[in-house]
């Protein structure tokens, strides 16, 4: 395993060495070129590279990186694995490291992002190369930043400090809207602040190394610190610097915005093209005022294009969603082999499990619905046997095609709460959920007429290793 990336620049240079980074020197328009290029990359294939723009009309030295996490190759490299690591291998490695929590923080006094400081007349439109992502978006959104906050009721407790990725609409020179759905930890911090009648101090770190971004997108417990999880994911203590207000910010960030969520203020926000592939509506959301911006010289800005799946956001939410569901499921049912919650932030979940006895698969499916993430998401759960790879949809489709008899293999539960952003909800936030049992019936469930399944010939595994080597040689 490769060592930790100290900053985004180091990760991009590794991507470049691995043939996973494209530099565009031609001049581009802020709109629609950068988002259009990122959208195009998602259509190019599963090994698409990151992209870096350094010549954006109207800007003097803006640099923008997109699609940094936007392929399994890039995701593997972010984890310090070989770039051709399979989805399945990345899942198991992610899960292995996840269970090593907690790691340590490495606190240092200074960081490159302190090189340039702007405290007067902050104008985010002139400091950051902001641009519209989707044509119906209500404005310019920062969507790949880590927002850091602490609990005013428990200020010195590091474990309840929160690092999360929340969309931020830049509405004025130093004014942001923030989407904080009530289930997220920052909403708890905000609630405590507003109950106390105080603004909530926040620090917003942009342009981070790839691991903390993944952690900011992972549903951790309130009492788990994303920096401590990043430490075990990258294999070394996570380096942070404390701001004057007392918030820990990644050492490697390119920009840090410091400000406050304004107590009791709500303002029109949105819409924004969101992970289900639809625009969210407009709502009255909280507001952040920025008091100070710090950044590195020649700073690098990164953004994630969110479009109709699959786009980069799906890679950001892939393993980060699957691992917590898997670990909670495994605690209840040791028979569970793997969980694929890659699709639309886990609205669909495929679980592979050994079957304890007839009907067991449905119990496993029900447990998915009651995991922390499952409560707000998992709408369609497909349960497959232990020898069906849930990450290989060809195998999953085969299982559905021969092992499902809808008379008896489909369970639906009406009127369950689910994420507001799922357009299928009716009314908003309420949906029927479904479990599909695509496992082979076993006693005492005697339905179907399942004879002997075709299996691999002897020596197949040795042949596979040999042939993979020969194919690699042939294609050099």
């Amino acid at each position, binding site marked *: 395993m490769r060592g930790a990336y100290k900053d985004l620049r180091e990760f991009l240079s590794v991507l470049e060495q691995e043939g996973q980074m494209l530099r565009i020197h031609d001049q581009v328009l802020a709109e629609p070129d950068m988002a259009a290029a990122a959208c195009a990359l998602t259509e190019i294939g599963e090994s698409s590279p990151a992209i870096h723009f350094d010549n954006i*009309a*109207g800007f003097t030295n803006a640099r923008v990186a997109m699609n940094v996490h936007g392929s399994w190759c890039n995701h593997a490299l972010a984890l310090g694995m070989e770039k051709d690591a399979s989805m399945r291998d990345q899942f198991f490695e992610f899960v292995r490291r996840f269970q090593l929590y907690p790691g340590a923080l490495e606190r240092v006094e200074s960081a490159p992002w302190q090189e340039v400081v702007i405290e007067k007349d902050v104008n*985010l*439109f002139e400091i950051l190369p902001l641009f519209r992502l989707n044509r*119906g978006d209500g*404005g310019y959104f920062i969507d790949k930043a880590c927002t850091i906050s602490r609990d005013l009721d428990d200020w010195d407790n590091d474990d309840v400090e929160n690092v999360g990725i929340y969309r931020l609409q830049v509405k004025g020179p130093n004014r942001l809207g923030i989407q904080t759905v009530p289930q997220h930890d920052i909403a708890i911090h*905000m609630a405590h602040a507003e*109950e106390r009648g105080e603004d909530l101090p926040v620090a917003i770190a942009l342009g981070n190394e790839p691991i903390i971004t993944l952690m900011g997108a992972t549903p951790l417990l309130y009492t788990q610190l994303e920096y401590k999880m990043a430490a075990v994911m990258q294999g070394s203590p996570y380096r942070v610097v404390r701001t004057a207000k007392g918030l820990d910010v990644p050492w490697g960030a390119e920009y840090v915005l410091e400000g406050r969520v304004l107590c009791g203020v709500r303002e*029109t926000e949105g819409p924004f093209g969101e992970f289900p592939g639809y625009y969210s509506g407009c709502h009255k959301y909280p507001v952040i005022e920025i008091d100070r911006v710090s950044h590195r010289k020649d700073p690098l800005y990164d953004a994630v294009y969110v479009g109709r799946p699959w786009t980069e956001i799906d890679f950001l939410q892939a393993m980060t969603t699957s691992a917590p569901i898997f670990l909670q499921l495994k605690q209840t049912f040791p028979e569970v082999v793997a969980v694929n919650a890659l699709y639309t932030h886990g609205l669909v979940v495929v679980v592979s499990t050994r079957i304890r006895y007839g009907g067991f698969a449905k119990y496993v499916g029900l447990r998915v619905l009651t995991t922390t993430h499952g409560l707000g998401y998992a709408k369609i759960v497909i349960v497959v046997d232990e020898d069906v790879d849930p990450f290989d949809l060809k195998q999953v489709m085969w299982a559905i095609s021969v092992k499902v008899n809808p008379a008896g293999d489909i369970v639906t539960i009406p009127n369950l709460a689910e994420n507001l952003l799922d357009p299928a909800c009716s009314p908003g936030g309420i949906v029927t959920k479904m479990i599909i049992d695509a496992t082979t019936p076993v006693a005492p469930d005697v339905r179907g007429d399942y004879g002997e399944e075709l299996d691999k010939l002897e020596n197949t595994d040795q042949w596979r290793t040999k042939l993979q080597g020969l194919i690699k040689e042939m294609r050099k």
Partner: protein
Amino acid sequence: MTSPAGNLAPTACPRCRSGEIRVLGKSPVAAVWTIFGCPTCFYAWRSSEPEENVSPDKYPAPFRLRPDDLADLKTIPAVPPRRSAK
């Protein structure tokens, strides 16, 4: 119609048609683009964007807003009551 920075100041928000427009920022390279914002609905746009984002007449109908609709938007999260002094 797209307008270069400083040439034709917009008179109405493309999204909600409110007449009050603010300049939010100008291109670091002079006269390439200007960013405008609507203090009513908080829509922001850059003068160099495609027509559908800068012109009230070309702004896509499904995304249009009326200022009167804004008051009915849901507040999330709800503002909690203040803790009473002990």
